[in-house]
């Protein structure tokens, strides 16, 4: 009978009489909040992509009328030709949207919310109402940021890093209200992230199902947990900096204005003290979810589970002491630069541990190349390229040369697009059945994957070469410089590839939308995975479990010799498995 107690009830677990508004709009259910984040951040991903296409048009075909550019107002693109002051807004807002409103909420907002309670066997987050507040604050922040594009003077213009004094002095940048709205949106987003993070951390620490010990947690949860700690401690620093920047513009303070005694470099320190942990916020969750998908696709236990956990913790810790490597050209003391260089290079160690563990997991595995697995393998490959170019930049002398060039742009897109976004495409396909009860189309998924991989590399790989040739980041018109003129055909090639890359995302969008309504009904455990979430019906009901499941083992017991199938769910009791202590403690407590 104890075996039955560990097996969750399948079927509609709770009678659900909440109104439509409570159930789908102002919901406190972590799964609905995750899905809300999914739709909102996919929208912002599209917005960010649209901005990128305009950037690429200007770089590939400078001063030529952009197709559809006539739709834009005179202040942005008269006769379809992008103005310099609109171009710098494009660059700024592309970075801002992609980092803060697309990739970060996609990774953390969607998957921390959706996966943490499901994978740990909790009924919901520790603070469901704070969770709801976190989503609505993030949405408000996104809308403020979006509307800043349409105010008379236009959006913020100092690049997504908002270097002072350009950002602090409206008379220098020409953006008053737009810049202030950027600050307000970032403060709101920081608040949203802090509210989310404290929820995730509390839930992971205190609400794991009996038997779900620390080292039985899936790596996705480990990664999201460390990410939440990074977000909790890094975002308030950005909020503080953004508030000071806002005050500089509105109430006349002088924090970042050197003319009045302030320090422009202070902004860089504050921004990158936040900014480098942020980099790991943007990659760690993808690493965690990729670990889950690779173990699933290899039908083998993950190679080196403990070393994976300690690598995540190591990356999370080292992320705090490397921010100076963004500032090698700021005139810092060379000794300080060297120490930042060393700490940065040390990060390659845990990253390499993870990479080799992924390969070790696949080695001699019974590989199943379903769509999530393909994306996960591409993640590893692309992350290696991005990681290696990262080591180039970590070396101070090399960075002096390639700082603020397209080499940096290539690097960040290899880790953020090739890394995080490939991981996300995989994750979306992987957990789609548990979110919506239907499968995404595998065939179209593979078409999308191969075309994306191809055009993605055609777009971003040549940027390395451009960067080494000295092509500056954020320049308006590369043909103005004689030394860049020979590279203009390459710029055009990149632009055409980028347009194609953007176009093939329509396959994903259509696959996503059509599958939402017409996709094949998903079986309960379509990927034959071990995670607790797959023991629930599709889609999982409000409150998740009728009875909290007992957990008997780690999450990666594929091809276990004692199991009848080639997978062994964490909550399935085999003869001889001891009952988790927490379960018996709890029942004793009740009887007493």
């Amino acid at each position, binding site marked *: 009978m104890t075996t039955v107690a560990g097996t969750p009830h399948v079927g509609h677990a709770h009678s659900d009489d909440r109104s439509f508004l409570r159930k789908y709009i102002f919901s406190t259910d972590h799964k609905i909040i995750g899905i809300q984040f999914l739709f909102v951040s996919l929208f912002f991903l599209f917005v960010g992509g649209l901005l990128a296409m305009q950037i690429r048009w200007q770089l590939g075909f400078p001063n030529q009328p952009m197709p559809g550019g006539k739709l834009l107002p005179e202040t942005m693109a008269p006769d379809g030709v992008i103005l310099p002051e609109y171009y710098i807004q494009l660059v700024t807002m592309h970075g801002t949207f992609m980092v803060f409103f697309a990739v970060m909420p996609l990774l953390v907002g969607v998957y921390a919310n959706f996966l943490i309670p499901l994978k740990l066997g909790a009924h919901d987050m520790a603070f469901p109402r704070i969770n709801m507040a976190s989503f609505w604050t993030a949405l408000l922040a996104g809308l403020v940021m979006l509307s800043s594009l349409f105010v008379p003077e236009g959006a913020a213009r100092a690049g997504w890093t908002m270097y002072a004094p350009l950002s602090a002095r409206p008379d220098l940048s020409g953006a008053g209200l737009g810049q202030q709205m950027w600050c307000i949106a970032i403060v709101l987003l920081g608040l949203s992230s802090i509210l989310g993070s404290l929820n995730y951390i509390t839930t992971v620490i205190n609400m*794991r199902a009996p038997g779900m010990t620390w080292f039985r947690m899936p790596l996705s949860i480990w990664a999201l947990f460390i990410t939440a700690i990074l977000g909790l401690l890094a975002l308030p620093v950005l909020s*503080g900096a953004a508030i000071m920047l806002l005050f500089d513009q509105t109430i*006349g*303070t*002088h924090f970042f204005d050197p003319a009045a005694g*302030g320090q422009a470099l202070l902004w860089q320190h504050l921004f990158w003290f936040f900014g480098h942990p942020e980099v790991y916020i943007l990659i760690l969750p993808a690493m965690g979810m990729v670990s889950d998908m690779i173990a699933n696709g290899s039908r083998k236990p993950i190679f080196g589970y403990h070393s994976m956990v300690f690598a995540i913790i190591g990356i999370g810790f080292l992320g705090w002491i490397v921010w100076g490597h963004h500032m090698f050209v700021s005139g810092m003391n060379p000794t300080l630069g060297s120490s930042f260089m060393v700490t940065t290079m040390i990060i390659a160690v845990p990253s390499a541990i993870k990479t080799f563990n992924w390969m070790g997991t696949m080695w001699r595995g019974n590989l199943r190349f379903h769509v999530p697995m393909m994306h996960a393998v591409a993640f590893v490959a692309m992350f290696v390229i991005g990681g290696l170019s990262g080591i180039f930049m970590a070396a101070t002398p090399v960075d002096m040369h390639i700082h603020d060039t397209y080499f940096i742009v290539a690097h960040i897109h290899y880790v953020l697009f090739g890394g995080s976004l490939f991981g996300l495409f995989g994750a979306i396909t992987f957990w789609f059945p548990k979110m919506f009860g239907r499968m995404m189309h595998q065939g179209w998924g593979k078409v999308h994957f191969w075309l994306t991989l191809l055009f993605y590399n055609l777009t971003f790989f040549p940027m390395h070469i451009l960067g080494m040739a000295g092509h500056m980041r954020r320049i308006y018109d590369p043909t103005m410089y004689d030394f860049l003129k020979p590279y203009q055909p390459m710029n055009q090639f990149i632009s055409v590839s980028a347009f194609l890359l953007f176009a093939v995302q329509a396959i994903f969008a259509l696959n996503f939308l059509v599958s939402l309504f017409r996709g094949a009904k998903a079986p309960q455990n379509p990927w034959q995975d071990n995670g607790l979430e797959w023991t629930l019906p599709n889609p999982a009901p409000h409150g998740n479990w009728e009875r*909290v499941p007992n957990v008997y083992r780690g999450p990666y017991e594929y091809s276990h010799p004692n199991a009848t199938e080639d997978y062994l769910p964490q909550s399935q009791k085999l003869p001889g498995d001891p009952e*988790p202590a927490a379960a018996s403690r709890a029942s004793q407590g009740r009887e007493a």
Partner: protein
Amino acid sequence: MTTANTDAMRPPFPAERGVDAYNTKLGMWVFLASEVMFFTALIGSYIILRFGAPGEWARPGVVLNVPVTAFNTFLLICSSVSMVKAYASIADGDQRMLKIWFLVTIICGAAFVGVQGFEYYHLIHRGFLPSGVREGSELAELVAKGTLSEASLGLYGSTFYTMTGFHGFHVTCGVISMIYLYFTKVLPGKYTQQNHGGVEVVGLYWHFVDLVWIILFTIVYLI
């Protein structure tokens, strides 16, 4: 057997608990960690700007009214003591003393905000603004006489108002949430000897705000 199953459906659910603290308390500790980082950003910026400031930083007491703020600091420390007394009362199951000490805390906290508002009013009246010194004001005369170095007064105003302002904002939030708890939980007697997590959690926040003020008072008003 059936009883055991229905029991498992009711909170508190059986769980692996990483720390021996209930969720709200753990959540507050986690939240305070992020607050530490927020104030560190402000205070750290203040330290860097002060060390790099052009000209001499204004000496304590020239611009600010230190005795008034010292009294205010005393008020806030008293409110921390009364918060501890409120918690100790309800831990003993004493509803009457909880009501008294909780109210004392609210009054001290509100008085702190009031005195700070009074202080701001006077400072602005004397010509001390976030952007520096107002022309033709009392402080502008001190600058003209050479008692005050003008070069760093802009930074002084920027950091002073931002740091103390955000601290005041936190105190205000604390007072508002305590007033809310007072009318919804304390007065109706909803806290008991067994169940008084709300007092403990709001107390944690209150002591944190108090601690931040002791640091701010030291570095802004005393040195």
